[in-house]
């Protein structure tokens, strides 16, 4: 076996020291009738070369985004990742370490978490961030639980239909056994209408969940929605796109109390949906309700600045069933990637990235909608995604033909929104060139 050291001589010497005759004897505490008496029915071992060849052939059965021009979005995006992110995060000292239980030999990880928390606080305009959660969807669900426990309102949670449908499904699963109602407000015009929200919130509403820009790419009147929620005594949970904050107002500045995001956009590959980075930030008064790890600055015995995991009395290993969440570890590797990514971009790089997304999306829409077959489904302003209606209502055929022509052309929306069965969602990142957009437009326009 490639990763074992013990030679037969080592094994014999070790057994002698233990006082056992065989390795089998070490398993004596497992009753004989519970032992597996046959080899596992899995394929035989492979050498490194065979494994690499096998995996190469499996990979070749996939079509990856680099082989087609990618216009897919909906919570995972084809943003550019600078080489330094891969090189630095690929250092074994980072990726083969674990949760920094021993602060003295984990200052690298702990300082990265502290820097990450600071970057996320500055990005969101909120006071504090945790060390990250699993992904955007479960972070949204954790934020809802946090809002329920801090408001002590167990009646309902109000969520906009323009929030990512898989986040809404995740939240529904988390609430299913807790007796809290999940009320969804329709968004037939692509954004929440303030009067619809006002009619839905009441004094039993723990929080209102909105997404900015929303799942359709539309920019909500977020400040107005937040003030309606606050007037009813509810908290505001905001899902956001970190890249958009190069241009858009920060969640904390328009009234969000808890902000969550899918951090994949900050330097993590799409890798078929995960692992990603669940970002969560909140106002200071909520920090003791926050789930997950949090790092803080302190001093060592010699007075030197250092960092530790802190506020651990919130967590499962101390509080058990009274913990704020069952979450154990963070997504350290992706918090690291986000920290490196933001350090490389800086304020101007983030702004330029956001602006390129905005300009190219606008350009793509204008070019595509020159053709009668296509129109914008909603007239609200958008950021890097838009919903396109196919007036012929042949979305599945259109996208299949576009794939054959070399494009991952869009995400069909009928699977989540039956009324949008004739629509698809497109995302245009900073990576798409004018040539790519023009040829995509051209290809879609000539499909039948």
């Amino acid at each position: 076996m490639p990763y074992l050291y013990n030679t037969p001589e080592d094994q014999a010497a070790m057994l002698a020291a233990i006082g056992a005759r065989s390795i089998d004897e070490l398993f004596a505490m497992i009753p004989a009738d519970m032992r597996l008496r046959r080899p596992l029915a899995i394929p035989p071992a492979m050498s490194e070369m065979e494994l690499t060849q096998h995996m190469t052939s499996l990979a070749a059965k996939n079509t990856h985004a680099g082989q087609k021009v990618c216009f897919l979005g909906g919570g995972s995006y084809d943003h550019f990742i600078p080489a330094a992110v891969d090189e630095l995060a690929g250092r074994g000292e980072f990726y083969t370490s674990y949760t920094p239980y021993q602060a003295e030999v984990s200052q690298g990880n702990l300082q990265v978490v502290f820097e990450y928390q600071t970057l996320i606080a500055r990005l969101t305009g909120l006071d504090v961030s945790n060390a990250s959660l699993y992904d955007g969807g479960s972070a949204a669900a954790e934020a809802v639980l946090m809002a329920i426990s801090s408001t002590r309102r167990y009646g309902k949670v109000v969520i906009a239909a323009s929030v990512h449908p898989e986040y809404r499904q995740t939240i529904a699963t988390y609430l299913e056994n807790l007796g809290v109602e999940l009320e969804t407000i329709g968004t037939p015009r692509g954004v929440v209408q303030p009067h619809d929200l006002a009619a839905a919130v009441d004094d039993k509403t723990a929080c209102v969940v909105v997404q900015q820009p929303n799942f359709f790419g539309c920019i909500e009147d977020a400040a107005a929605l937040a003030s309606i929620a606050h007037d009813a005594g509810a908290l505001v949970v905001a899902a956001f796109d970190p890249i958009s904050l190069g241009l858009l107002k920060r969640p904390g500045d328009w009234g969000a109390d808890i902000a969550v995001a899918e951090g994949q956009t900050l330097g993590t590959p799409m890798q078929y949906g995960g692992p990603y980075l669940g970002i969560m930030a909140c106002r200071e008064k909520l920090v003791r309700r926050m789930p997950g790890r949090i790092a803080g600055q302190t001093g060592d015995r010699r007075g030197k600045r250092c960092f530790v995991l802190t506020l651990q009395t919130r967590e499962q290993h101390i509080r058990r069933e009274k913990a704020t969440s069952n979450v154990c570890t963070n997504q350290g590797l992706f918090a690291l990637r986000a920290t490196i990514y933001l350090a490389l971009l800086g304020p101007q790089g983030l702004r330029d990235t956001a602006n390129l997304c905005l300009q190219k999306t606008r350009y793509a829409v204008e070019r595509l909608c020159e053709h009668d077959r296509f129109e914008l489904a909603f007239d609200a302003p958008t950021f890097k995604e838009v919903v396109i209606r196919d007036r012929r209502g042949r979305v599945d055929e259109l996208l299949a033909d576009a794939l054959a022509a070399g494009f991952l052309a869009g995400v069909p929306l009928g699977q989540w929104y039956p009324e949008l069965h004739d629509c698809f969602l497109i995302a245009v990142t900073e990576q798409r060139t004018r040539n790519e957009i023009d040829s995509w437009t051209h290809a879609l326009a000539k499909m039948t």
Partner: protein
Amino acid sequence: MRNTRDTNLLFELSETGRRAHRLPACDVPERPVGELVPASALAAAPPALPELSEPQVVRHFANLSQLNMSVDTHFYPLGSCTMKYNPKRNERVAAMPGFSDLHPYQSEGTLQGMLQLLYELQEYLQEISGLDACSLQPSAGAHGELTALWVAATYFRDRGEKRTKVLVPDNAHGTNPASAAMAGFTTVTVKTLPSGTLDIDDLRRHLDNQIAVFMITNPNTVGIFEPRIREIADAVHQAGGLVYLDGANMNAILGIARPGDFGADMQHYNPHKTFSGPHGGGGPGAGPICVTEKLAPYLPAPVVIKTTEPSPDPSLQGRETDRYHLDYDRPKSIGRVRAFFGNVGVLVRAYCYIRTHGPDGLRRVSENAVLNANYLLSRVKHCLPVPQGDRCMHEFVASAAKVKTEKGISAMDLAKRLLDFGFHAPTVYFPLTVKESIMVEPTETESKETLDAFADTLIRIMEEDADLLHDAPHTTPISRPDEVRAARQPMLVWPETY
């Protein structure tokens, strides 16, 4: 030789006007931002991120990395965490664009290799667990626990049974009771005996028609296989409850015993532990779960299924081929537990690990994990008693209670002093059922020489002057941090104006 300048905080290193990543000029006609986005939604300025050059960023993080211990650089016997070697081949394979550059909403036809891999992994995990169905969706072990408890809740609701309690042994991981609470259950603690095994009489006292699930870690958290596990499972089943196996310790029993064969109805895996992760400085993990047939309909959607159908490839002239699909048509499913398919990058590495080892190799992993743990136990038990006895599975829990009483040296002191000698500390103060506990899990990927060096060091430092240990570590980048100050005067972000 340490570079302390470049490990200042990013915010201290920042200089206005520095830039690393530059973007290309906009190649489409550009419009004023104010025409495209309403003024009310626009920020006055971008967020106050630090401004740095690329060499500066590289030097900063490269130097920070060197302040960590890691599996690549050190022996890391952190009990319960299975810090085994993380194969480099898996990293290279997982980074192939055919896996890493796939968007989650690509169509099935463009994902046949990915879906085949995930389907096969479901099958392998079922076989290793002796259970019938698998969901790869949960994001971590704790998330797998929660998912399984939702499956149980939905199963009982579907049967019209109202069961409100989850039983958890007193030496369980903290995630068990926390997951139970999140799933809406009341947690009841079951005692363990001084021998480290479950107090079956206490369990029986709690079994009634309110019991939904009994959660057990086996091998348990003191490194012992529950010899009466089948009797335990039978008792739970007779009361109408389900048995959940916390799979944190699967590294001890791969190919040797299967949870489904000893009575578990559900289990999670920690692929970042058992199937070599890596741990990523605190994540990512993944938490796939396996369940029995009767619970399969409740698993999260989608799962990967296989059909045999005529190939769409015209060159194969309609020959039958395997096709893989995402099955969303699961009316009894608990729903989603996260967005997208799951922590696929971790699952790809787990698949590589299983394929590298095969049936004999996996068994040898567990044999050597258990051999290494028993050897280390035999080397240290004379100076550091192991209350649960002379034999263990893949890890053991020693107690520093005696040396604490006699010399005032605590488990924490020993842990800290080990750092000075280039060993990561074992887990200390867990489980709570052993006083001054030191939980050691060497894993199978360590040599006898390393284990000897670790044991020699442990024996030696127990002879050292107590004050030397109280002040340890002495050679690490920092000495012991003031955790009380960190909690009482929390400083969780670097202030913008400092």
